[in-house]
């Protein structure tokens, strides 16, 4: 069961195609990270999903409803926190919560009180006097308190200092233990996402590069180091080998579809005297590798 589904979803700004035929499924109950560099189309995708922007083509459903028809009932089950959202800064934290509360039949006052303490937010301070991190936490609190079925976080870590970022992530993690919600988080901040996400999708130039579970992604990417006795001819790398290079007696490359037996066999074939060691990669390293690869390819080839 998917809480979000898109089918060839596109969005065009005048002549620029920000989102190209995105077909994606976010499983219910997952923490789904939408990754990509700046301008990859993450925010556009989320805005279309939230019906903040109409799609130029394709379609999408959230909670089983066409995004263009999201009504008050659906919105009461969706939480949205974005770095760009303009909160009513004249309100105090308490006034913000008082304002939001009546709109949500599922508002949990006990959870609100718990999160208020947990996030260490001063209830009587005006939002305009809060730091950026506190402001994001206030927005998150006003979103989590009604236990949304879907929590959408659009670049929530931008502009936060490491401490605030850590607090924020911890807040989400702790909150996620309080309910069984689905989280869709877009970010180019891979380390933070890695702590949260169990599903990952990568957008590049508005296109979906891949979408899979974090476990599967981390499982199929390996940084390989092959120790060879002398210079070897590298030749053209086989499909699925990236950044193949040799430094002295060490040949390095990254495999994108690691399965133990297959890669070892391929190494033996190519470097008969070599000793291969496979190192697991972090999400960040995978992301950087793919981004670098995209950059080195001629325009349009990534498609």
């Amino acid at each position, binding site marked *: 069961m998917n809480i979000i589904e898109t089918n060839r979803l596109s969005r065009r700004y005048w002549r620029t195609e920000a989102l190209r035929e995105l077909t994606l499924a976010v499983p219910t109950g997952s923490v789904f990270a939408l990754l990509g560099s700046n301008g990859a189309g993450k925010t556009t995708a989320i*805005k279309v999903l*939230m019906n*903040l*922007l*109409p799609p130029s083509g394709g379609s999408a459903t959230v909670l089983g409803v066409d995004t263009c028809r999201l*009504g*008050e*009932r659906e*919105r*009461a089950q*969706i939480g*949205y926190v*974005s770095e*760009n*959202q*303009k*909160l*009513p800064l*004249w*309100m105090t934290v308490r*006034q913000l919560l008082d*304002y*939001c509360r*009546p*709109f*949500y039949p599922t508002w949990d006052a006990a959870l609100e009180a718990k999160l208020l303490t947990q996030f260490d937010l001063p209830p009587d301070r005006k939002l305009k006097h809060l730091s950026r991190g506190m402001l994001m936490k206030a927005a998150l609190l006003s979103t989590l308190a009604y236990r949304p079925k879907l929590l959408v976080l659009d670049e929530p870590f931008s502009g936060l200092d490491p401490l605030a970022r850590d607090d924020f992530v911890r807040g989400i993690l702790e909150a996620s233990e309080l309910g069984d919600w689905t989280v869709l988080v877009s970010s180019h901040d891979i380390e933070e996402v890695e702590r949260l996400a169990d599903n990952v999708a990568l957008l590049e130039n508005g296109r979906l590069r891949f979408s899979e579970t974090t476990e599967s992604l981390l499982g199929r990417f390996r940084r390989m180091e092959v120790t060879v006795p002398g210079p070897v001819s590298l030749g053209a790398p086989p499909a699925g080998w990236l950044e193949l290079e040799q430094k002295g007696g060490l040949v390095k490359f990254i495999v994108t579809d690691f399965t133990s037996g297959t890669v070892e066999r391929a190494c033996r074939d190519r470097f008969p005297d070599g000793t291969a060691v496979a190192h697991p990669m972090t999400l960040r390293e995978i992301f950087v590798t793919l981004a670098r690869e995209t950059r080195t390819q001629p325009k349009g080839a990534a498609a």
Partner: protein
Amino acid sequence: MNLTWHIVKKDLRALKWPLLLWIALIIAKLGVGVVLLNADGTEGLDWFNKMSGLAQVLSAFEFVSFVLTAAIIQQDLLVGTTAFWMTRPISGARLLRAKLIGIGLVFIVAPVLVTLPWWLGCHYGISEIGWAVTETVAAQAIAVLLGLLWSVVTDGFARFLMWTLVTLFATPMLTAIIAYYASRHLGSFQPELVSTRFLLVLLLSIGGIFVVVVHQFLTRNIGRSIAIIAGTVGLIVLTGAFWPWSWNVESRFYSYLIRQAQGEWPAGAEPPGLAFKLQSAEFSGRKDRPASLIASYQVEGLTAMQGLMPVQSEYTLRWPDGTSATGRSWGRSGLADMMSAHALSGGNDSGKAAALAGSVNFTSAMPAPTMAKVRSSASSYTLPARFRLMRFESVTRVPLEPGTWSVHDSQGERLAHAEKEGPQLLVTFIRHMPSLWVDNAGGGQLAGTGDYSQYFLVNRTRGAVDRGTSTDYRLTRIASVGISWRTMSFLAIPRPPKGSVLDAINALNEAELVKVTFAEQARFSHELKLGPEEIAQANP
């Protein structure tokens, strides 16, 4: 609905200080009115002018309500993708309802509630309050509409202000351009056609703004909203410049007002035994120019204590070919002279007054085309003349000291100050009266009137009476109430002969100020007619 009110409360709380300041402006304006009404008469006309100017400035400041309207709307922006409400369970329709309620409360209900004590204090009745509320609402609606238009299609206050200023500058320019093309197209000025075009442009503007606002709230499709604005502006330009059919809106409207008023003056209420005898009918004015028909009557059948007070009416001219024209007619009677006679006699000798009672004349204004037609072909003339039948009530001596308010219906008057200066007595009166657009423009006198009184300086020893001349007069208007400052100069002998100023001063010491009051007995209309022959004879 609870959630809608929840949004309304949020907006009002967010803008509480600007809104309170705005309401304070209204209260300050009314405060100026209270100060004017309580003047002791020694402040002078300059002071009255300054206070009046202050009230006008405060009234002008009330129009910042267009900015406040925008502030209320832009508490929840309709443009862009970053507004807080857009991702909350708030539909566009609910938000629109909330904003309209908020705007209605602040700019319609609040000014009316704040001004209500002022109207009640000025003895306005239900009818006057109804019209005053209409005026207040209409004035605020202009500002609100201006604020609504750009606030729903801009993404912040700076852009809103910029586009509003552009509109405020562009509108007169566009009007001038339309007027230029219209004048070339029409050949000659046709006021009725211009009125029709103006009305259509007004309706298009209001309709266009309404459509844009509703569309933007429900769809947030900024491109289409801008297209609607552009389309409406195009329609406005085309209508303003080229609309060919005149609907005679202006004359129809005034006729409506007068008909409404005439409805309250039934012919059946005419006292029995009255007879109107035509004394003379003649045209004044030059050929092919706007002119007037002055018809004088002698009314028989009034008692010695009765007089007639004519009220503005609408005449009709009919030609044999079936065409007709209408216009306004003002009347005068001998009532003022009657009052003077009563003042001198103290209301005891009614003979002289009775002789003056029945004199009535009507002046009917005729525009140049009507006049030209009358001169070429005599028409019949019908005037459903309206009268107030007045009965002598009293002559009372007025002490020369500040007095209390004397109120008749919705008009009040107070002697503020009196002083002798050489041979003249200077008396300053402060008055308040309904100053409603519907009366001022239409002459319908929908506002109630009752007793009629006038002041005279009487020297019975010398048989002199003076109704006084106005030396200073100013009228200001505060929240649909007219406030006047009038200083009257009275002389105790009609014209002091040269060298006898001392005599005039002595006469002044012998004289007393009196107030003659006539009470309204009945209101009725009486159809006055002139045949084509009489009109032809009146034709110079």
